[in-house]
């Protein structure tokens, strides 16, 4: 069953369908918010919960067969914008709480440490991108959304998305080079 059919079922009060939607999107959404919030794991989980809660409260306004994933992500994106507009929304530059689970269980201690360091570095570099560029590159290259989906999530034309991605990636490349030279 596709997301849109499941969402329709949730709209009709099916709680089992709701659990399936959570199962499909929770992990990705936590990952996205975690990167957007500079590695603040607790805040990422709180905002994920808030995003799902808002989606359930608004599920009556969901119109089948509108793509569900962009609809859900647009809620999360707005929450991030609101979060950054508040005082506590400052992107942390240190003390990231690296999420468990990315390194394979079979990894050696050294490999795990290296992967954690890589995540910390990437979080720091991403934090130096403006929010609009950061969200575009993460949604595209980490979450794998298409340009059309991104345009719907961010409510801007595809051309604007391409521009944000292109500028964001170039800046990230420069930052990576500077970081490697240190």
């Amino acid at each position, binding site marked *: 069953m596709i997301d849109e059919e499941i969402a329709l079922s949730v709209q009709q*009060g099916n709680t089992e369908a709701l659990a399936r939607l959570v199962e499909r999107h929770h*992990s990705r959404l936590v990952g996205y918010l975690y*990167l957007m919030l500079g590695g603040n794991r607790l805040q990422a989980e709180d905002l994920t919960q808030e995003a799902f809660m808002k989606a359930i409260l608004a599920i009556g306004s969901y119109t089948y067969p509108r793509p569900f994933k962009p609809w859900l992500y647009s809620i999360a994106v707005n929450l991030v914008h609101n979060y950054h507009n508040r005082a506590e929304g400052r992107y942390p530059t240190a003390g990231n709480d690296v999420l468990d689970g990315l390194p394979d269980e079979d990894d050696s201690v050294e490999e795990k440490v290296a992967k954690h360091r890589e995540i910390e570095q990437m979080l720091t570099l991403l934090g130096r991108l403006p929010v609009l560029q950061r969200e575009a590159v993460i949604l595209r290259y980490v*979450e794998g959304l298409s340009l059309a989906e991104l345009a719907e999530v961010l409510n801007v034309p595809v051309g604007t998305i391409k521009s944000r991605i292109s500028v964001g990636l170039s800046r990230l*490349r420069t930052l990576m080079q500077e970081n490697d030279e240190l």
Partner: protein
Amino acid sequence: MKHHDDNLDRLRAWLIEDTGSEAEAARLLPVVERLHSLSGLADDPGAQTALSRLLSRELHARQPEPRPQRTVICIEDDPAMIDLVSLSLKTKGFEVLGAMSGPEGLDLISTVRPDLVLLDLMMPEMDGWEVYQRMKADEYMRTVPVIVVSAKAQNIDKVFGHNIAKVQDYITKPYSSDQLVNSVHRVLGIAGEGSS
């Protein structure tokens, strides 16, 4: 290894789509490779289960209380019209029972005690006016609300005369599904429901 190559090909294709240039895609590929390695950050499965429970409670709380199903008897000599009425009202949660003549309708009303009667005015054996009068003369049936259905508005005036005021509502053929549902909702005092 193949999986890694497939991933690279996909990332390269995305880059070409985004930048419109193969050279630019090649320049930025190492950047998006590192970015892409951040996908799949796992979270706590326990949090997922707890969230599902929380949301289920919220969803459950937001569902309206199930209303006991209301029964409508449609007295109409044209079976196609009964089917049409049935189709319109069943989607709104009503049970629809059809009767193809006045006497059959009166029998059904006394047996079932419906919430509402849809009464066609022009029927060969016993017309709607007579059915209506017999209903009102019966202590058991007199309180059942009636919506009169007529082919033309003037027929209602001609047959019911001053008694038209006593009818809860009337609709004229041809009527839309929305008109029918609106009329039924109005007579039964069902508010705040979309009729489309």
